[in-house]
């Protein structure tokens, strides 16, 4: 059942030390910066974080890593030109890294949400990232067995939410949000707009409200006005 939180701090207040947290976004696009900053303020530590990257610059996920709150990160592309917080922790042996090919990362998260036990993927077969994993030949092609990535919490960013928790996203900021919303026990979404029931056409809902536990309104700042559309 949906809760509308008054602010980001309240929305993340019960995330305990040691939790596994899916964090949406592909680089900065779709990253729920305000929710992550609230997590930094809350002081929660020992987190396992799942994100495509490992933080950019000084804000959001980078700040969480910089503050030493992340014990382990599961991601596809940690090393970026502005991932210095992660780089320093990694080189100092202060953060564990599980590197996952991006498509397998997305599919493992979907699988968790979809109640599938495991799946055979061709991606990574024969490479160092499949070492030690079960492999199988099916119809002449080689596959690696991959398991779901489940989480306690998901923090995601959408564009618009309604009072049933239905969400729509904006352009490529959609990325991991819809699958992460399905794979956590508690999904917390920050939205730029909160509309009444009926405010989103049922045909265009991307994340049905059943997947969303908490919504918090974070008005769009000085960023460019979005074009017309969902």
């Amino acid at each position, binding site marked *: 059942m949906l809760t509308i939180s008054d602010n980001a701090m309240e929305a993340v207040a019960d995330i305990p030390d040691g939790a596994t947290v899916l964090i949406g976004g592909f680089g900065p696009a779709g990253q729920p910066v305000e929710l992550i900053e609230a997590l930094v303020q809350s002081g929660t530590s020992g987190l396992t974080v799942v994100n495509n990257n490992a933080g950019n610059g000084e804000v959001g996920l980078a700040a969480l890593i910089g503050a030493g709150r992340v014990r382990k990160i599961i991601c*596809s592309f940690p090393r970026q030109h502005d991932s210095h917080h992660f780089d320093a922790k990694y080189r100092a042996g202060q953060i564990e890294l599980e590197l996952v090919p991006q498509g397998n990362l997305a599919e493992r998260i*979907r699988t968790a949400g979809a109640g599938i036990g495991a799946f055979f993927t061709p991606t990574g077969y024969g*490479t160092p990232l499949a070492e030690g994993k079960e492999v199988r030949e099916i119809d002449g092609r080689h596959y690696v067995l991959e398991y779901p990535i489940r989480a306690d919490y998901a923090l995601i960013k959408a564009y618009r939410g309604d009072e049933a928790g239905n969400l729509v996203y904006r352009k490529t900021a959609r990325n991991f949000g819809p699958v992460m919303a399905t794979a956590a026990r508690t999904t917390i979404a920050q939205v730029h707009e909160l509309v009444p029931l009926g405010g989103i056409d049922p045909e265009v809902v991307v994340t049905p409200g059943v997947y969303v536990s908490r919504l918090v309104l974070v008005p769009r700042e000085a960023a460019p006005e979005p074009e017309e559309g969902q």
Partner: protein
Amino acid sequence: MSQNAADRSFEGRLDRNALAALVASDIPHGAYVNLGIGQPTLVSNYLAPGSGVTLHTENGMLGMGPEAHGDEVDLDLINAGKIPVTELPGASYFHHADSFAMMRGGHLDICVLGAYQVSATGDLANWHTGTPGAIPAVGGAMDLAIGARDTFVMMNLLTRDGQSKLVPECTYPLTGLGCVSRVYTDLAVFLIEPDGAVVRESFGIGFEQLQELVPVLLRQ
């Protein structure tokens, strides 16, 4: 010999832009294409508006337009290299699992990737040098390598110290096995066929000279 020496000794070799134009000219009308980060991105500059080519970016979009500039920049609309881009009429957005299902499921015609090494049997190494202490990052490379119907590689044929990057067997960590079908280089275009590498054309270098540089048996 050094790469600089090598460069100078092949006057007719293609520069990055000429190579991108060549790749673009080989992409059939109506194809769905993913262009990897770096050199492959240049190919988009040579896809004419009438080419009918639809670009996929694995962060959730089909119908990607050129890089955005000035007022066009929208931080919610970026490509896989996290560069702001634009949207063409007929575009669509989808989430990451759907985007990689599209790639992995073989629905895209061509993926163009950079490489550290390609083997004579089409193995690809392009994600990790294996250098001790380097922070590994794979991104979508392994999915892209094995997903499209055809995977083309764009690279310089030789390393800076003059070693061929087309090799009998990759020594760098692999990205995918047997996945590359064509290798576009500054000195030649190679077709990776079931029975070995074939030189489709070469630039400023003869077949014999090319065979001397490349430790893989070549066919004409």
